[in-house]
């Protein structure tokens, strides 16, 4: 009896486990996987590119898998790379985040591929490590600065500021008119750092060797007045009473809405917001303009540029040739066209032969002069592998009046030191 029972128990368990082995769907000739983050424009672009690519290669299917963005997504990407479970192609940030993936160990070097000739040098620099170059750009170049509502500017007779003092004077007038002058959305902490990060054109202009010094730990935020200014900007805006009442809880999407509907005049943000703005507020999109974050002196005001994410191929990819063919497609004028149809164009392309359409939105045409007159420089995270992870909490604290700018700057230095130590970055 006992034996029978035990045996039947065992068979029940075996049966239960067997149930879990679901049959797999039969696949086409070549099937590949692709891992992208779940931001809506990422998915829209990926789906459009995959559909166009599959049309050219009917024997290929690419299955897109979405993952969360932010730190959680970084984790998933690292874990899957380290355990050899990465998809055949994946979408990931360029710059300091890419460096943390140990590209030389984990990614396929593309520097000898013919299609890389079409990729702009500025982008290649931020996806390179050692002698290798690892990715192709997913988007046009982006920039951090201030989005502003042109209707409010018109109504109050304001001019686009070129110095910080002019910017603050504008804020005073907007506040006096009963409108929120600066939208802040600390409900999503990453948005709080834009004011600081977008000031980097100004910082590197005043302190030319800042990035190298910061990487090696010789130059610090707290002892560089030009760098501390970024924290002070955040505080001055908070102290001036310029922010929306719900700045602590408002989210990125709220910020875009307030800007588009004229509830707020300025929103410090990166231009990857342009597609979301033109999707959600197509009627108001041309009321929204953009200017670089004004520096102390007008001649120091310039554009801080963000490089877009790239497509990368892990060394463990099982379809390397087809994956390369996909990247070649992305890095071609045809790929740009597909992208541009899927999602609004938000800046100059980083692929040779790609032309901007004539009818770009207002904020993009505001952006282009900075690229043409050369008054632009990449943001710190693209010229230094060091980016302390707690920066966004520190900027929230400064903006919420919990911590003084100087204090935040020295905590940030400590955080950067820790990151360099933990990641074993060279030069420290």
């Amino acid at each position: 009896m006992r034996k029978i029972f035990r045996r039947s128990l065992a068979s029940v368990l075996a049966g239960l486990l067997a149930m879990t082995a679901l049959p797999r769907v039969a696949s086409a000739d070549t099937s590949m996987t692709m891992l992208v983050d779940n931001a809506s424009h990422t998915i829209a672009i990926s789906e459009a590119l995959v559909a166009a690519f599959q049309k050219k290669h009917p024997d290929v299917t690419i299955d897109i898998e979405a993952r969360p963005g932010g730190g959680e997504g970084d984790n998933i990407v690292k874990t899957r790379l380290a355990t050899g479970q990465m998809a055949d192609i994946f979408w990931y940030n360029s710059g300091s985040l890419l460096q943390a993936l140990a590209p030389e160990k984990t990614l396929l070097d593309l520097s000898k591929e013919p299609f890389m000739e079409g990729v702009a040098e500025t982008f290649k620099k931020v996806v390179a490590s050692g002698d290798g170059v690892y990715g192709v750009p997913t988007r046009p170049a982006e920039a951090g600065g201030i989005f502003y509502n042109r209707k409010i500017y018109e109504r109050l007779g304001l001019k686009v500021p070129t110095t910080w003092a002019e910017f603050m004077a504008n804020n005073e007038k907007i506040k006096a008119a009963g409108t929120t002058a600066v939208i802040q959305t600390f409900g999503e902490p990453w948005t709080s750092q834009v004011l600081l990060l977008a000031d980097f054109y100004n910082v590197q202009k005043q302190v030319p060797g800042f990035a190298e010094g910061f990487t090696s730990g010789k130059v610090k935020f707290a002892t560089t007045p030009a760098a501390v200014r970024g924290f002070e900007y955040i505080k001055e805006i908070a102290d001036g009473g310029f922010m929306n009442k719900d700045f602590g809880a408002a989210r990125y999407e709220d910020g875009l809405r307030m800007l588009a509907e004229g509830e707020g005049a300025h929103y410090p943000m990166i231009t990857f917001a342009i597609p979301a703005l033109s999707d959600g507020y197509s009627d108001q999109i041309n009321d929204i303009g953009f200017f670089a974050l004004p520096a102390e002196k007008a001649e120091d005001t310039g554009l801080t540029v963000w490089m877009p994410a790239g497509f990368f191929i892990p060394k463990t990819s099982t379809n390397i040739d087809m994956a390369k063919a996909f990247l070649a497609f992305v890095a071609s004028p045809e790929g740009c066209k597909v992208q541009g149809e899927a999602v609004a164009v938000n800046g100059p392309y980083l692929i040779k032969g790609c032309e901007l359409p004539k009818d770009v939105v207002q904020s993009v045409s505001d952006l282009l002069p900075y690229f043409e007159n050369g008054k632009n420089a990449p943001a710190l995270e693209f010229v230094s592998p060091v980016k302390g992870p707690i920066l966004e909490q520190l900027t929230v604290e400064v903006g919420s009046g919990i911590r003084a700018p100087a204090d935040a700057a020295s905590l940030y230095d400590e955080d950067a030191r820790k990151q360099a130590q933990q990641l074993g970055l060279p030069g420290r």
Partner: protein
Amino acid sequence: MVTAIASTANGRRSPYPGWFFLPAAIVYGVFFLMPTFASFYFSLTRWSLFEASFIGLENFIQFFREPFLVKGLVNTVLYAAVTSGMKVVIGLLLALMLTSQIMGRGLLRALVFFPVLVSTIGVGITFTVLMHPTKGAINEGLSLLGIAGPGWLTDPSLALFSVALVDVWKGVGLATVIYIAGIVAIPKDYYEAARIDGGTKFQNFLYITLPLSRPATATVITLSFIGGLRTFDLIWAMTKGGPGFASDTIASVIYKQYQSGFFGLSTAGNVVLFILIAVLVVPITAVLNRREGHQ
């Protein structure tokens, strides 16, 4: 767990066979303990997932140098104490109410228990919206009563407490059910005897219900205190430790380190968290279980 098998060697077949431990011990040992021991080694390394180099105790030194560690420690203990305390008190009160002849008892039991079933992320999202300082339903409701509601999740001194409240809301149903099971299991004779002796309801509660539901209290405290020390999903879903660092707990600090790619450091943090919990919880459970043994 393997040890119980060895002690059956006295020849007589025990009615409580040691091999009952075996299947559980295998699954637990292989899928939980082995990776955990492996990770303890990594707490002594600089570990980037792609390579690990031995750096001795440096991670532990770094962990204790974290500027927000003290705040995180205090928050962790505070959160665990507040949530488990409230779950004990409210759970017991609700259980008393729901074991008495009260109107709508079935419905109330269902209502109180239901939040236990809803996904933490769902609850987090919902309450983040309800606690919005200007548009949230809670403050709208308060303003109807003429009260200006606070910034539940945006006021640094309030954020942790607000999350703890939601934790209690979501978890008190389980405490209540554990208490109901405990109270219902108390033999009726005791109350019968007390009734003959002319005891009041309050005396019944003090001298019968409270002492005899001690096992339930032990379970509720153990589970919710440990849960409180460890919780992280609700805090993460609602405040991500913010504003700034105001509602950071050790678990969220560790998670952030992990996210930043500081794998060795975050593993060291796990070891520290484990020791902290052991130091706090082992004595508590030892006391609670000793009392329980008398029953």
